């Protein structure tokens, strides 16, 4: 049975726990050891996924901004403004 509400596929390392403990202290977050372990568990699961995202090339000069997601939708799923709509 998987009883956690977060993916549990890898055990958190002591190194991660120490890092998160320090970050929590710096931000004045009162986290129990149990909560820190949950955070480290999710961090362990997410880590390889983050590597996959970091491997995607997003060049400095290429304009890809968060807002483009919503502009793309508003354009009906097209990456450029259709000629008829250009000023």
């Amino acid at each position, binding site marked *: *049975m*998987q*009883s*956690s*509400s*977060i*993916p*549990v*596929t890898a055990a958190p390392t002591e190194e991660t726990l120490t890092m*998160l403990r320090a*970050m*929590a202290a710096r*931000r004045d*977050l*009162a*986290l129990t050891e149990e*909560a*820190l372990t*949950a*955070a480290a*568990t*999710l*961090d362990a*699961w*997410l880590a390889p*996924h*983050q590597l*996959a*995202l*970091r491997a*995607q090339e*997003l060049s400095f000069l290429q304009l*890809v*901004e*968060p807002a*483009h*997601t*919503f502009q*793309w*939708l*508003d*354009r*009906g*799923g*097209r*990456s450029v403004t259709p000629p008829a709509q250009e000023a």
Partner: protein
Amino acid sequence: MTELNSLTATELLELYRAGKASPSEAVDSCLAQIDRLEPQLNAVLTLLADRAREQARASDERWLSGTARPLEGVPFLLKDIVATAGIRTTGGSAIYRDWVPTESAALAQRLEDAGGALLAKVQTMEFAYGHEVNTTWGPMPNPWDLERTTGGSSSGTGAGISARYAPIGIGTDTGGSIRDPSSFCNLTGIKPTYGRVPRHGVMPLAWSLDHAGPMTRDVRDAALMLEIIAGHHPGDPMSSRQPVPSYSADLVHADASGLRVGVPTDWFWDIVDPEVKAAADRVISELEAAGATITPVALPHAHLSDAIGWTVMLAEFGSLHEVTFDRLSEYDTGNIDALPAAQFVSASDYLRAQRLRNLVQQDFEAAFEKVDVLVVPGSIAVAPRFDEMGMTLDGTFYGYIEHYLRTMFVFNVTGLPALSIPSGLSAAGLPMGVQIVARPFGEATAFRAARVVQSRTEFHSAEPVLVQGT
């Protein structure tokens, strides 16, 4: 004779129009069903019997006087993260146990302005995030098998509509929370295009992934609901100003001639129960037999969507709950695990994930050059048992929270409209689902394809054994 509570909204409206039934009779029938099954299902958080009866009496008068509105006298359920003026709205949380909003959510107001009768506020995972149960308000068993989950987070709407408490209801969907319970409970539910339905008054989980939409038992009801709740509202600046078509009128003569159906060649089918895949194949075959053409399409970046979705969701979720983070111990168990983790998503990871959404969108843009809709699995398996919360496939265990939403989260990441419809029952008699996905604001095309399937098949009308015995 079929009980009124078992009819769809479209069927009820036909009876009202013909003077063969009244809203008061329908509301009483639905309330009686709630009374019969609620001890087993625990789907209702706040029952509004007297209020619904009062609304129904007003609707009776409107039908008699010829002033009926589009949803006049149709009972509906609201997931309890949708604010309702003067009615407790808990968010499925102990923290909001006694919160009574002074203003209704835009979509709730629109449903009532269209004549709908609100029967009940129903169960949800706390703040629309969680796992197998809401420990604050109790477990929400699946009407198809009380040992199994309804899925989430729109659990009460899933169970309630499936159990014939009401014909229609509202769910919300940040990573699959309309479509997952729809798959598990044999429902037709749509996560519309991002921005199609205003989220004003809907408790947020993650701003840039949150959607609200209809959960029903028939695509015609989903179309009718969407045309009522869609459209810009100033309370949600991200809600779209695109015109709202008459989705239901477009379905009167739906056919598949000329419809181009795309089927992804990869990723979506990598982890799918063979029965779910076979059922999806049958739906695709129905569309082909009805005149659609089937085309394989590649979506090479779709596999990134889980990582993007989780990163964005956690970061936004953590930000939203900063205000009550010092009350972590009062949160439900599902969030006690996730909220601490949400504190540690870095800004650069969050922004990279947001930028990469457009990369995944471009895959779909290329696909929609060739096709009008895509067909992909709904949930990757039937509803898991509470004591398993996952499935084993070829010797590997796939847990619910990590894997079951993988075919759905991608459409929150891209914002594309995704309609979940039943695809049949498994050998064990459990519902399975398939998604029909269209280009942005192409809900009408998804509805059309679904209507073709539902006009040629019967499985969307199947009832749980629990209901057959009432």
